[in-house]
């Protein structure tokens, strides 16, 4: 089942601003290694799931993963070859707003080389520049 809220007050959202830096969720809280966003983007539920699968496989299902973002905003799309008007389109997918500094994923319980490789593979699934963090130390950057 794709990542999406169980209950919502309204089905369709208006796109809000993504300006500024991440004021919350910008520190490592659970694991030893983390992937931090350096740019802003709307990250989709499919991208988050692809990252999760990449990390799980790279860690051979060992260790532990924390997903620190959740796609709680819907995005709509009108069908192809449809004239404008006639109301807002149907919900197409769900997104999470990511600002620079936001911690996206955290991992623990695996050797450092495995953790950094897993996060590097996850970073390749995202549309933004990220960096890998270890508690108190920056390990490397990926554009």
């Amino acid at each position, binding site marked *: *089942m*794709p990542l*999406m*809220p*169980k*209950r*919502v*007050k*309204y*089905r369709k959202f208006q796109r809000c601003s993504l300006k500024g*830096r*991440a004021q919350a969720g*910008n*520190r490592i809280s659970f694991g*030893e290694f983390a992937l*931090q966003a*350096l740019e802003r983007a709307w990250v989709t539920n499919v991208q988050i799931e692809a990252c999760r*699968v990449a990390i*799980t496989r790279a860690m051979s*299902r*060992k*260790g*532990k993963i924390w997903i620190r973002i959740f796609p709680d905003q819907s995005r709509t799309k009108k069908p192809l070859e449809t004239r404008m008007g006639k109301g807002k389109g149907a*919900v197409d997918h769900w997104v999470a707003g990511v600002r*620079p*500094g936001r911690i996206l994923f955290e991992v*623990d*319980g695996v050797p450092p080389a495995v953790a950094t490789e897993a996060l590097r593979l996850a970073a390749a699934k995202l549309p933004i520049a990220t960096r890998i963090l270890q*508690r*108190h130390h*920056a390990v490397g950057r990926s554009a």
Partner: protein
Amino acid sequence: MAEVELLKAEVRPQTGTGEARRLRSRGRVPAVLYGHGVAPRHIHLDGHQLEVMLSHHVGEVMMVQMQIGDEKPVTVLIKEVQHDPLTDRPIHVDLLVVKSGERVKIKVPVELAGEPVGVREQGGVLEQLQHEVEIECLPEDVLEFVRVDVSGLGVDEHITLGDLPLPSDRYRIMGDRSAALATVVPPRVTEEVAAEGEAAVPEEPEVISEKKAEERSAEETPGD
């Protein structure tokens, strides 16, 4: 105890966000100096000197000699350093004036040493539940970090704050001594949620406002 270094500082005549930002743009780091029976003083430090000093230590809590302007150097404790989440540069420092014989409360990082038996032989996962611990000690006993051996830990076993190798006559652990510090959890037995190529069927979330409207209409209908 960490070695004592000399940190140069200047008095900060103005306070506030704007002034702090102006200082940071000039390579300075805003700081505050306070202590028991001492009026708080707003100062600023050399950012480069601070970064070099912090890079030579594992932890950030340490004793330093600090000289404000031309005043006599005083011994202070770096109590907390705030870092920019994106650049990792220090943005603010809390300094505590210490008096000999007066105990101080500090937060020190906990480092786990060794590979637990539960991980090595049973495939468990070592989980650290607390990454720092608050302790009370004399200024001369300040630690940069606490290392605890977890090599004897089996699956579903844990160590608590009370198990920290700190002599009780010199260190007092703040908080619940029975609180778990690290544990080895059994290996995960999970399956991949969706098989490759299998199209995930998107489900619609429940809409609260629609549900309420339905309930309202259902209530109104029997009465009509």
